[in-house]
Each structure stands twice: as structure tokens, then as C-alpha cells.
């Protein structure tokens, strides 16, 4: 399709790019499903106290008469080894997951973007320094690094957040660096310089707008992977600590009761999958819609 659009003979005249983007989005039911999933997860996290059938299950509540209850009308996802409602814990678990996403991306994205802009625009020593450092950081196996950091710092949500943030910015630096390098071949950058524009203006008013759609797509895809990453940390016992309801911890604990009481591990596992799937579908949809390559 893109070859056709580049062809000057291609008959796409008469549509604005906004209309084309909307057309692509509308023709992509998966993207709409993704958006719906993401919205449902966000709403669940925000309104957890009102939505959860038994909010007290989020804490260290114990109900031994009801432990290991299979899914039923009372407990749609069953109960765990101390009788807490799994559904309620999943809903609260989304709070933890999304908090992690906000914390990580809130720091990593701006930091990574600014470094990428600077490396691509200034070149020379700035570029060498930033990009070599990024290369080294990329050579660190992220999960191993995060494990090591949280283990030494003592495992909890904040430290997990710090560890993931320390590793996450590199991807944004790389992405932005690549885009800016390509943009530097365009005449508009030199034109702005001839017009007397300052470096700050060129970086943030001229170059940044050309990175926005790629970053938007990346953030959407990232959100899912941060959730996955956090869950993996807790699964190994190095993330969020009990009794805070965390999806990864729930899978780890639940897997001890596999396979007979499968719901205790599988339900939170599916809940993680559901959220990641939503962010991925949304990200893919945005990618098609905004026509960016990552």
C-alpha cells in the first residue's frame, strides 16, 4: 500500500491524512477491541473499591472456611489459599500494575526522549557519549539487572519501579535518536537555523513534534511490557510483597496449588494477559493509524 501512496499517480488525493488515519482505525476492529480493553483496565483500577465484590480481600483478610473455593457466582474467579476472593484481588492488582506503569514511563520516557533528541541533534561528543552509554545499558539483560537491584535494595514496589525505570529509558533514547538522525537530513532543520532559531526551539518545537506519534505508539506498547516485567519480578519474589495484591505474586503463590486448584494461578495469569493484550492491540492500531515504524 505504501508503495502505491508514494506513486505520484496513486489516486489518494482528496482525502486529508486525518481522514485516512480515521479510515484505517475504523477498519481495524482489533484496535478498537484494544482500546476497550485498556479503558476497562483503567476503570477497574480507578474504581476498585466500588467494583470489587469483596474489597477486604485486597488486604490480609482471612476466611478459612472458604479457602480454595472454585469459581462460582459468589466468587467468579474462585478463592485463594486463605479464602480471599481472587476477582477482588485481580481488580486491586490492576491498581498496582498501572501505578507501576505510570511511575516507570513517567520518568523513563521524558528522560529517554531528551537524551535521544540531544544525541541526534548535537552529534559529536554528545552523541558518542550518550549512545555508547545507551549501548552498554542495552547489553545488560534487563530482568537480571532489575532482579539484582531489587534484591540489594530490598524488594518492594518502589524499588521495583526504580529498577525498571533505570533500564527502560534506553529504548526511547534509541528510538528518538534514530528518528532525529533521519530528520537531520531534512532541510527544515537547517532552514530553522538560517531563520535564527535557537537550539531549544529546534529540539522541542521542530524535531519533537516529528517524534510524537512514534513515542505515542511506543508508550502504548510499553505499558503492556512494564506490566509484564513487574509481574515477572514479583513472580520471582522480588517485586511487590504480600499482602499487597499483585498479579505476579498471585500466579507464583497459586502455582503451588496447580493443577487441581488451577484458578488461583490461571485467573491472575489471564488477567495479566488481558491487560498486555489490550495495550498491544491499541499500540498496533495506533501504529497503523499514524503510519509510524518502530
Amino acid at each position, binding site marked *: 500500500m*505504501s*508503495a*502505491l501512496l*508514494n506513486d505520484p499517480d496513486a489516486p489518494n488525493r482528496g482525502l486529508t491524512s486525518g481522514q485516512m488515519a480515521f479510515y484505517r482505525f475504523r477498519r481495524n476492529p482489533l484496535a478498537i477491541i484494544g482500546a476497550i480493553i485498556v479503558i476497562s483496565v483503567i476503570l477497574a483500577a480507578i474504581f476498585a473499591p466500588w467494583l470489587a465484590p469483596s474489597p477486604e480481600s485486597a488486604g490480609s483478610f482471612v476466611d478459612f472456611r472458604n479457602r480454595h473455593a472454585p469459581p462460582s457466582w459468589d466468587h467468579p474467579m474462585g478463592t485463594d489459599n486463605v479464602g480471599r476472593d481472587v476477582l477482588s484481588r485481580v481488580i486491586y492488582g490492576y491498581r498496582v500494575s498501572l501505578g507501576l506503569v505510570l511511575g516507570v514511563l513517567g520518568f523513563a520516557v521524558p528522560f529517554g526522549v531528551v537524551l535521544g533528541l540531544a544525541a541526534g541533534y548535537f552529534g559529536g561528543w554528545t552523541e558518542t557519549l550518550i549512545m*555508547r*552509554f545507551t*549501548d*552498554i*545499558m*542495552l*547489553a*545488560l*539483560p*534487563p*530482568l*537480571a*539487572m532489575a*532482579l*539484582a*537491584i531489587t*534484591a*540489594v*535494595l530490598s524488594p518492594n514496589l518502589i524499588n521495583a519501579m526504580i529498577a525498571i525505570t533505570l533500564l527502560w529509558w534506553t529504548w526511547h533514547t534509541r528510538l528518538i535518536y534514530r528518528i532525529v538522525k533521519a530528520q537531520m537530513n531534512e532541510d527544515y532543520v537547517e532552514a530553522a537555523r538560517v531563520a535564527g532559531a535557537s537550539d531549544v526551539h529546534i529540539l522541542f518545537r521542530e524535531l519533537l513534534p516529528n517524534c510524537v506519534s512514534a513515542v505515542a505508539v511506543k508508550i502504548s506498547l510499553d505499558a*503492556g511490557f512494564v506490566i*509484564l516485567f513487574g*509481574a*515477572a519480578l514479583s*513472580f*520471582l*519474589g*522480588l517485586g511487590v510483597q504480600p499482602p499487597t495484591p499483585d498479579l*505476579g505474586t498471585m*500466579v*507464583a503463590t497459586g*502455582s503451588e496449588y*496447580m*493443577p487441581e486448584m*488451577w484458578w488461583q*494461578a*490461571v485467573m491472575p*495469569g489471564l488477567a*495479566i*494477559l488481558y491487560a*498486555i*493484550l489490550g495495550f*498491544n*492491540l491499541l499500540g498496533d492500531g495506533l501504529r497503523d493509524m499514524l503510519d509510524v*515504524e518502530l
Partner: protein
Amino acid sequence: MFSYLLRRAITLLLVLLGLAILIFVIARIVPGDPARIALGPLATADQVTELRAEMGLDAAFPVQLWTYLTGLAQGDLGKSLLTSRPVMDDIRAALPATFELVLFTVVLQIVVSIPLGVMAAVYRNTWVDNVLRVVSLIGVVTPGFVLAILLQLVAAHYLGFFPVTGRLDGSIDFSADITGLLVVDGVLAGRFDVVLDAARHLFLPSIALAAAGIGQVMRITRTAMIEVAGRDFIEASRAYGIPERVVTFRYMLRVASVAPLTILGLEFASLIGNAFIVEFVFSWPGIASYGVRTILQKDLNAVIGVVLVSGLFFVVANLTIDLLLGLLDPRHRIRAARDR
């Protein structure tokens, strides 16, 4: 070509040196005294002082760094607090298992994802493409540990044929001394019972490990193929009467394979990361299992060693891919030759 290789090798060493320094600095600037962390809150002040001296922690920071780097150059990573053996020995013992698993996984990824990606591109926007899209999506979004547990559940209770823990059945008496890779050494020793059993053991962990990468690489292959399909020289080949099959596999795939291979290299770091989980779940006696155990014990020397070795894996994998790209694309080679 030779000078190109040499330059790449030197860049590689520099990255590794940077990595070593970075890891050391991180390990030292994290709050807390490594000796205290290692001994736990119940240790006495004397014990801590003693361990500090033993670990060389009372020297000045640059001295510590220098001691560490010179030790590293001689292959000395210090002693593990967990096993009381040199970290290097522990790693040497655990490395082949991980190497075998990772190698198997990467081969699986290439063999599965590139053909499927090509197929998705050839049949793009048909039901084939849609089915493959869902498959790749499932691979990408399923967390490694969830997949690992599900595979264990299914395999243990319904399939039975695939074992869910370890590298080799306890009843088989065999030690891999040549390469350390059971499958390879089994072939070399003519022990096909070993080869079969080792392959059976590899099957589930490598699927759990490969799934995410397969999804990614499939998608990248598809995109790259579609992009290349729109280039002028493809239209020219068609117009000169080259059959469609040859256009797809010789003309498009060779150019398009650059992107998936690059991604495979970059994703290698997360592959090693995921190996931590997969080895943990499948009790695979590799370096990641060792890593998880030592991390839980706050065994700093061992942790540094494990992270360094993982970094080495990544860097070497990327160098390999770079050379592969050079073989695939003459522009790499020509540029390298011109630089001389």
C-alpha cells in the same frame, strides 16, 4: 574485511569494559554495605569487619575498581558466598546448560518465525495473515512465566512425553565433557538415547523462552517483506519475468531479512532475562538458575559475574549477527573495505 573484524572486536571489548565498570559502580553505590547485606541483620560488627577485609571493601574505591578489573582480566570474579567456590567455576559449570537452551531457542525462533512472517506477507490481508497475526500476538503478549506454568501443566498431565524439569533423566549416566552441550556431545559419543532425552528436556523450556521472540520476529519479517515488495527493483524483477517464488525468496527475503536479524540481536538481552524465569520454573541447572539463587542470597560477587556473562552473551550475539548481515548485504562489506 580483516580490519573491519578487528575494529568490531575492539568495540566489543570496550563495551564489555564499560559494562564491567558500570556493574561494579552500581553494585557499590547502592545504599548499604555489601558485607552487611551478605551477612544479614543478625551478624555481629566483628563478623562484618572481617568480611569487609576479606572482600577488600576497606580499600579506596579506585583501588577496589582496579583490583576488580585486573582480577577480571585474569578470569577471577571472586568467591561466591553461596557456594564458597570461585564464581568463575560456578559459572563455567552452569554455562553450557544455558548456552544449549538459548541456542536451541534462537534456532527455533528463526526456523519458525521467518517462514511464518514471509507467509503472512505473501498472503497479506487474507485469512492466513489474520490467523498468523493472532498467533504472533499470543506469543508477544503471553508472559513467559504464565506460558511456562501452562506448558508444565499441560505437558505433565496430558502429554507425559515431555519432562518438565532438568536437562537429562536421572537414569541416564552421561557427562558432557567435550562441548558441554548434551545434544552435541551425545552425537559425538554415539549415545543417541542421550540425544533424544536431552532434546525432550529442551523442548518445553525452549518453547516458553522462544514464544515472545517468535511473535516479534514474525511481525518484523512481515513488515520488512511488505516494505521491500514496494521497491522498484522488485517491480523490475517481475517485469523481467523472474518467477514469483524466486522473487519472494531470493530477491525479497535476502533484503528483508536484515530487519528481523537485527531485532533478534537486540531482543537477545531480554531473551537472557526471560531465561531467568524459564530456568527457574523448569529447574534448568543453568546460569540463570544460579543467578536467581545468588540474587536471593545477596551474593554480590556471583551476581556481578552472572550479569557480566549475560552481557557477554548479548555482545557476542550481536557481533555474530553483524557478520551475518555482512554476508547477506554486500554494502556492509564494501563500506568496511572502503574504510580501510
